[in-house]
């Protein structure tokens, strides 16, 4: 007779991911999992797949339920106590508008992506991991919308985020990132999202930015951010395990995976330039600069990671040095661009205050005063004369990352980085060598890119002029959601909350 003994963690995980699986008897495995081979990845033994957290379904539901209870208690408290009145500055909310329309829909895209690829693996461990992650990502999308629904009652620009995500020009940057990953094969999707994005890069979004939300008095956002991030810790671990699993399975996988890492690191880096701007310009109370965050979360952590992966024959991403060198520039170049196109954004833009310019100069001693401060001071002078600058043209977009061609050459911050190539008698334009190379490797994929500026010019985005595109197709409330923060209804409302009386003519001595 055997005594019943409590199973340990390893045994429980073994039962869930191995013993509940079965071998098909009347269908061929290749018919059941038809996407498993076409990318060229060779899996010799799915039993090599291990989730180091060894999370089983019962534990998963238990801990997730507890996280949700804590999170929603805080949302209630935040709403009941009018938490939006305690944020650092009315301008802060604009980072949430970008987050809700740029990032939250990616959580939903990730949910769809993991639900889809989870069906495609013949290994049960991988299927379970993808299932849990799909549920996590759906939770993130929901909690973010719930958290920000409170802000939607008090501020403009938050009313139609999913539609804007699908249509607005700069939101095609995050949208196309996930669409391009989801339209790849299942192993490439995992390398793109689980490894390159979740493991290598998302810390930059969810750790220093969320810590920044706390520092700006936004209890709701920091709480959903860290609650989501507690799932991300699992996702990141999985991302690393996936890479090691692929590399250990067969040496032929190494060059394929390396190419994917090169590509998706670069795409992720371009996507995160939006976060650089949120950190350096959109958080009124600063925690750390983008450059500092990049040094801790990419150069230091990524350095340790890629050293660890050396033994598999993997080297750091091909264009890593370009990304490292750009850390002193990208946030300033991007904010300058959004400032110019502030008539076409669902959030407000502004010239940083004097002390904020000084902070930027201190954090970016090699670049800010030399290249960027004069530009902001020039625009500020124009604005004070009543000639706030808006750029009336539409920007040229990169065919691959869809960011406007606004970044500069590594060795010359005054020269735009621009590449082009001809494919089937058509010329395509890129923001960088790296994006051009991605295109050259998969031209048939990227010629299909839905580039918002081209679509506007082709007449596929509503009316004939920019205001009708913005109002009819993007659903912006013109004069409320867009333009400078100064003079906006948001500013007026914030001043009312804080009892700040704007100066009028009579107050000027």
């Amino acid at each position, binding site marked *: 007779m055997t005594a019943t003994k409590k199973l340990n963690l390893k045994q429980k995980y073994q039962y869930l991911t191995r013993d509940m699986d079965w071998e098909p008897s009347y269908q061929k495995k290749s018919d059941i999992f038809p996407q498993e081979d076409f990318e060229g990845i060779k899996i010799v033994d799915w039993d090599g797949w291990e989730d180091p957290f060894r999370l089983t379904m019962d534990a998963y539901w238990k801990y997730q339920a507890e996280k949700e209870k804590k999170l929603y208690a805080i949302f209630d408290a935040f709403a009941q106590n009018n938490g939006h009145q305690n944020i650092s500055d009315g301008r802060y909310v604009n980072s949430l508008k970008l987050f809700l329309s740029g990032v939250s829909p990616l959580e939903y895209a990730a949910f769809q992506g993991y639900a889809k690829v989870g069906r495609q693996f013949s290994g049960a461990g991988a299927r379970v991991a993808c299932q849990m992650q799909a549920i996590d990502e759906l939770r993130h999308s929901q909690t973010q919308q719930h958290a920000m629904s409170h802000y939607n009652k008090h501020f403009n620009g938050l009313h139609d985020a999913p539609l804007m995500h699908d249509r607005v020009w700069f939101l095609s940057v995050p949208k196309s990132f996930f669409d391009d990953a989801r339209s790849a094969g299942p192993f490439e999707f995992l390398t793109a999202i689980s490894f390159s994005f979740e493991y290598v890069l998302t810390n930059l979004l969810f750790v220093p930015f969320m*810590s920044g939300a706390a520092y700006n008095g936004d209890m709701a956002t920091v709480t959903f951010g860290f609650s989501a991030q*507690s799932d991300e810790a699992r996702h990141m671990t999985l991302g690393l395990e996936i890479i090691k699993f692929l590399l250990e399975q067969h040496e032929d996988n190494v060059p394929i995976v390396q190419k994917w890492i090169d590509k998706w690191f670069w795409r992720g880096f371009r996507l995160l330039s939006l976060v650089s701007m949120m950190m350096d310009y959109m958080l009124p109370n600063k925690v750390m600069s983008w450059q500092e965050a990049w040094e801790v979360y990419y150069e230091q952590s990524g350095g340790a990671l890629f050293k660890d992966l050396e033994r598999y024959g993997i080297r750091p991403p091909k264009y890593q040095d370009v990304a490292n060198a750009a850390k002193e520039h990208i946030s300033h170049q991007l904010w300058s661009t959004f400032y110019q196109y502030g008539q076409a954004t669902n959030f407000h833009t502004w010239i940083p205050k004097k002390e904020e310019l000084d902070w930027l100069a201190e954090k970016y001693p090699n670049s800010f005063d030399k290249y960027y401060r004069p530009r902001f001071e020039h625009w500020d002078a124009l604005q004070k004369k009543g000639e706030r600058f808006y750029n009336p043209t539409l920007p040229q977009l990169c065919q691959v990352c869809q960011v406007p061609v606004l970044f500069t050459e590594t060795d010359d911050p005054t020269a735009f980085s621009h590449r082009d190539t001809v494919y089937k008698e058509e010329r395509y334009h890129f923001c960088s060598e790296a994006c051009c190379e991605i295109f050259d490797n998969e031209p048939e994929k990227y010629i299909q890119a839905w580039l918002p500026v081209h679509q506007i010019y082709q007449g596929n985005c509503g009316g004939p002029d920019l205001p009708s595109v913005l109002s009819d197709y993007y659903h912006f409330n013109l004069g409320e959601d867009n333009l400078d923060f100064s003079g906006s209804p948001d500013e007026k409302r914030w001043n009312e909350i804080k009892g700040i009386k704007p100066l009028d003519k009579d107050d000027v001595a």
Partner: protein
Amino acid sequence: MSQKVFIAFQDNENARYLVEAISEDNPEAEIQYQPAMIRIQAEKRLVITRETMEEKLNRDWDVQEMLLDVISIGGNVDEDDDHFILSWNN
């Protein structure tokens, strides 16, 4: 080259005990306090031990309870009923 593993926790009541336990088990670990979070880093290896946590809390503690408060990690993870270990192996 220095190769740091790290773990970040929400700065809350649970984290206080985690930090105490980690400091005791990893005397070399560096603790960084940032708004709403605590980041702990160490060269190559960091361990959280169930036994130490149970001493600090004076109750049973499941290693997976840390999932509630963790924000991020860097390093290879190895978890069993008694430990949570982060390491770089190369």
